[in-house]
């Protein structure tokens, strides 16, 4: 188990022997035969393929269903570490909600000068239609995925807040199922907190946000763009595990002030829609008129209290990469406390001095598009070729406001199983937080994404990343 002195390795921590959370696992591992484990690893892939846990890759018509590679070595977090993380996540989720409510109502944070007016007013993610709208239960972000990275024993940073329609939770659940099937004896040796409650928690959480004009049935449905969407498996998975219908826009229509779904027995009202369709495509009458994925008039029904939309429209203004740099201020402004989770220092290229610094240090920095996601449109300076650096230099000079830059973080490593045995790879973590009038609930663990290529810092599944089961240990 070789460590790399530059990076914090979560298994050995650079010391002698494994760190405490990995002690029991390491003991088990040392009693195992490498060949057997490698065989298990192949079994896991068959299992995933048969279950159909695949994702569709855009722009690749042939092999259009791919597996996200799964690594059988778990990423392990101690009870104490987790407690600290959950406090930070809860604080952040509450702050994001308060921020959204404020931004779409009194805008006190702008008046106080803590966030520049321009950043909101001229931001595409700001949805003017949401001004003055009161979401049911006061909840904007029913589901949030906070991307965390670790750089040292006690250093966790938030890389990104995903407040729109964060995905990946089905992998969190299926990864655990797979591990339980493959290594049942391991779970009797190491006490791991279960994650399987997530769908039931989500159902309860959504059910606690009924709209003003709810039908008596409290019907929840998952709205998917359809079977060609890259995350369709997850949409079906969640609907199935919550025991609710999976609908597409064409299954829904407005009837008597409610959103109704076409059933074999006629149209029936829906009270809460967990939508996995972006704001822009949600309602051709109110947003993008060309959208075929949404429901004409759903936003009017929403405003009139006929339906709950989760997450609420317009939450993108909270996870915008330009807003990100203000998160420590935002947390402090609404909670009165210092942010528990650290932000990565961020240069906003719209600022002249920052831009000059970024251009000077391009080969050391990570540059991201303000509105990009999925690791696209991103420059990792230290790994980039001269040509790429020059392309980005031009992009930055042309549209500085489109970019932010951050130092290249020394992402922690966790071992994966390779042909030669264990080898460290960089990871991040996306825990999932549910928010309802019942409070914030965070499933212990989350989705650990791992860069499978040695040395790579890009963990996105679309760019050669894989996933791991994430264990949060029981106390003691």
């Amino acid at each position, binding site marked *: 188990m070789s460590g790399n002195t530059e990076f914090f390795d979560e298994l050995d921590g650079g010391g002698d022997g494994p760190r405490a959370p990995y002690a029991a696992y390491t003991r088990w591992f040392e009693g195992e035969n490498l060949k057997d484990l490698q065989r298990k690893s192949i079994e896991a892939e068959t299992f995933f393929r048969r279950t159909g846990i695949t994702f569709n890759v855009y722009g690749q018509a042939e092999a259009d269903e791919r597996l996200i590679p799964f690594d059988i070595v778990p990423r392990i977090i101690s009870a104490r570490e987790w407690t600290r993380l959950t406090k930070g996540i809860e604080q952040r989720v509450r702050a994001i909600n308060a921020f959204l409510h404020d931004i779409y109502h009194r805008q006190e944070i702008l008046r106080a000068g803590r966030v520049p007016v321009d950043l909101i007013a001229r931001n595409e993610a700001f949805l003017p239609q949401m001004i003055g709208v009161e979401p049911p239960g006061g909840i904007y972000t029913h589901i949030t995925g906070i991307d965390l990275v670790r750089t040292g024993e006690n250093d966790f940073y938030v890389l990104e807040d995903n407040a729109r329609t964060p995905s990946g939770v089905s992998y969190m659940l299926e990864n655990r199922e797979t591990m339980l099937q493959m290594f049942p004896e391991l779970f009797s040796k190491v006490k791991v907190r279960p994650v399987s409650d997530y769908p039931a928690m989500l159902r309860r959480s959504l059910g606690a946000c009924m709209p003003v004009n709810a039908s008596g049935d409290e019907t929840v449905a998952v709205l998917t763009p359809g079977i060609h969407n890259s995350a369709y498996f997850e949409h079906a*998975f969640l609907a199935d595990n919550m025991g609710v*219908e999976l609908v597409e826009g064409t299954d829904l229509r407005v009837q008597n002030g409610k959103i109704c779904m076409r059933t*074999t027995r006629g149209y029936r009202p829906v009270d809460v829609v967990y939508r996995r369709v972006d704001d822009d495509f949600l309602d051709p009458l109110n947003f993008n008129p060309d959208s075929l994925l949404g429901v004409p008039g759903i936003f009017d029904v929403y405003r009139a209290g006929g339906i709950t939309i989760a997450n609420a429209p317009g939450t993108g203004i909270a996870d915008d990469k330009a807003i990100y740099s203000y998160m420590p201020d935002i947390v402090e402004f609404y909670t009165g406390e210092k942010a528990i989770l650290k932000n990565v220092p961020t240069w906003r290229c719209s600022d002249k001095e920052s831009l000059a610094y970024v251009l000077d240090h391009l080969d050391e920095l990570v540059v991201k598009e303000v509105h990009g996601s999925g690791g696209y449109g991103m420059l990792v300076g230290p790994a980039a070729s001269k040509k790429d650096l020059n392309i980005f230099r031009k992009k930055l000079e042309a549209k500085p406001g489109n970019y932010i830059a951050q130092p290249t973080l020394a992402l922690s490593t966790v071992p994966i199983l390779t042909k030669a045995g264990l080898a460290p790879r960089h990871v991040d973590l996306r825990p999932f937080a549910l928010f309802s009038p019942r409070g914030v609930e965070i499933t212990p663990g989350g989705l650990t994404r791992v860069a499978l290529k040695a040395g790579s810092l890009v963990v996105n599944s679309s760019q050669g990343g894989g996933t791991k089961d994430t264990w949060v240990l029981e106390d003691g």
Partner: protein
Amino acid sequence: MLGKTAGGLFWMFRYLERSENTARLIETGFRIALTRPDGDEWTSVLQTASAADSYRERHGEIEQSAVIDFLLRDKENPSSVYNCIANARQNARLVRTALTREVWEAVNETYLEVSKSLARPVAERNLPEVLGQIRQYSALVSGALHGSMLRNDVFDFARLGTFLERADNTARILDVKYYVLLPSVGQVGSSLDNVQWETILRSVSGKRAYAWLHQGKVTPMGIADFLIFDPRMPRGLRFSMSKIRSNLAMLENSYTDRHHCHDTSERLDRMLQTGKVEEVFEDGLHEFLTEFLNDISRLGHEIETDYRFHG
């Protein structure tokens, strides 16, 4: 249940049934060709699969390996086994939430394994094995369906798809061969050309069952009666129709509403319960089958409308 889901289930099982039927037609054609190399069995196989025109457009002359490939794996042929199974799985994905994990995994595995076998042209030497595999997987799906699904509306729509497709198929097999069964003067009661009756019975996996029930006496009326009116024959019209009727009755009960499709299915079921093969021959077998195929097709449309498959 969503109308879309009901439609997805219905089509998923229609496609699965169709893939099995097409595989059986290939098996029959291949078998006959082995024993009677000079025959023209492939033409009627293509007709039965409603693929004669599209085949001619693509390949022109009838040639065994081309026909087999066209029926088995051609992506341009909408009812090729490959396309049927791919469509079945596509529909299964659409209705994933209505299926048990067992059924979904069975369909998914069917698709993954069969598409592996059909990735390249199948050599004649391997054909029996591949066709056997297709049949096995089809049994796997129906086993999973029976063993793991609740007997509710989901199950009813799945069964409606299966039996509507089956009734359609068996009627088509008979219709393509009706001229063989047509008794000319002095032929009633006489033996049929061996190959022809063998084809018909093999196409519905009924050769042995027929021999048992009729002590080996093969007559046109005997075969027509077996496939149309015998309530014991699971691929026969009467059996399929009684299943369609009972599944629709189940829906009527659980939903407490009645539609056009209920009237139609009851009328057809009654007709098959009380009909006599002698009368059918008197009025014309082809006319009877044409009308039945039209009725079945209308019933299919009624089910789609009555249960709101489409918006």
